[in-house]
């Protein structure tokens, strides 16, 4: 599971639904979730978590996209297997990985050192409160 440390910037509620914006480094994230416990409030430190399978990658991205979260990242490593490849990424918000098909890897020509855009839907990210040890 990928984890990125962030601070809650704003919370917008509509009945049980919440849209939360967060700051991580200089990057902005948006998360959509149902009921929110009281401890998630503006200024709280949280971890944004997401699976590698929920991260899409784009090279030379152009045009309009509905995906709320896009992160500029550098490819730090490519571990290619037969059907799938695990891509290590570094961004201003932190490091994370993306799991993509080898077909997609070949089609996009992504390789180590490339600049890419990582794309995550707001409903694929979840939050957990950081507990002080």
């Amino acid at each position, binding site marked *: 599971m990928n984890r990125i440390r962030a601070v809650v910037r704003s919370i917008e509620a509509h009945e049980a639904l919440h849209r939360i914006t967060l700051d991580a480094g200089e990057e902005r994230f948006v998360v*959509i979730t*149902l*009921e929110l416990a009281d401890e998630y409030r503006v200024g709280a430190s949280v971890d944004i978590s997401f699976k590698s399978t929920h991260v899409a990658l784009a090279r030379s991205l152009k045009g309009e996209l509905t995906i709320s979260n896009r992160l500029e990242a550098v490819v730090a490593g490519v571990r290619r297997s037969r059907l*799938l490849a*695990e891509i290590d990424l570094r961004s201003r918000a932190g490091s994370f990985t993306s799991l993509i098909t080898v077909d997609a890897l070949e089609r996009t020509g992504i390789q180590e050192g490339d600049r890419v855009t990582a794309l995550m839907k707001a*409903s*694929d990210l*979840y939050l*957990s409160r950081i507990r002080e040890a």
Partner: protein
Amino acid sequence: MMLVVNVRKQLFGAEGDFSLTTDLEIPKGGITAVAGPSGSGKTTFLRILAGLTSPEEGFLQVDGRVWFQGREGRRPRINLKPQQRRAGFVFQGYALFPHMSVMQNLLYAANDRDMAEKLMEMTGLGNLRDVKPAQLSGGQKQRVALARSLMQQPELLLLDEPLSALDETMKSVLQDELLKIHRELGITILIVTHDSSEIFKLCDRVLLFEKGRVVADKTPRELFVERATTQKFAFKGEILELKSFDAIHTAVVAIGNNLVEVVIDSHERGSLRIGDKVVIGTKAFNPTIRRFEHHDFDFSRL
């Protein structure tokens, strides 16, 4: 305030002695779940309310009337006998008189034929009035026990795992009947249960006991749905198998009697071992839902 209970009682547990200590107020007319692991003091708590066990010290008041008041090491100033307390009690076992009919079992609690007729009607026992307990099913026996506990028109109904011996279908029917009785009689109910769906369906409040103390006092929704993470779909399980192939890794996890397979990443693969207790979860947005079909495997058949 219906119930004020501020008591202390020494208990002897398998992992050492501890004391049951409560400081609670429960308003009139609700259904409160009493939950927590075995040996955490739940049944003792109910027995203290019913007057079947006395605390070392404390204060118990129901609807303005003091049922118990006492200080450590002295004879209690007030300690009403069980029959002086307006509390009905139903246990997991049915505790019916085997030689008496359904009607006689009810009349033994209070000689009030009109009340007995009304309660038999309410619990669907109308045409079983002359039947002896041995001829009744588990669900019917528990209905008789419930009706009998209501004969003296208690203010407080204490239920100690009343439905845990019944199958899922019968359980669901009796839950609906309990809600109906609660609606019609407006009685205050405390129910010991481990069943989360029962708590969610019946109760407006949950007291979670641990080693004699109430460690959580919340609504079922707060306890079950508003979790520490924003994942709404999370279950505790145990890892049974870990595998690696291609660029991924998988874990087979047992959740209750169900087995599921989850894709994990290489970092997780490195830190997990077979037998580890884990929580598998996802957001409420991700799971899909469809009707159960005959070709789906039903783990409850095992």
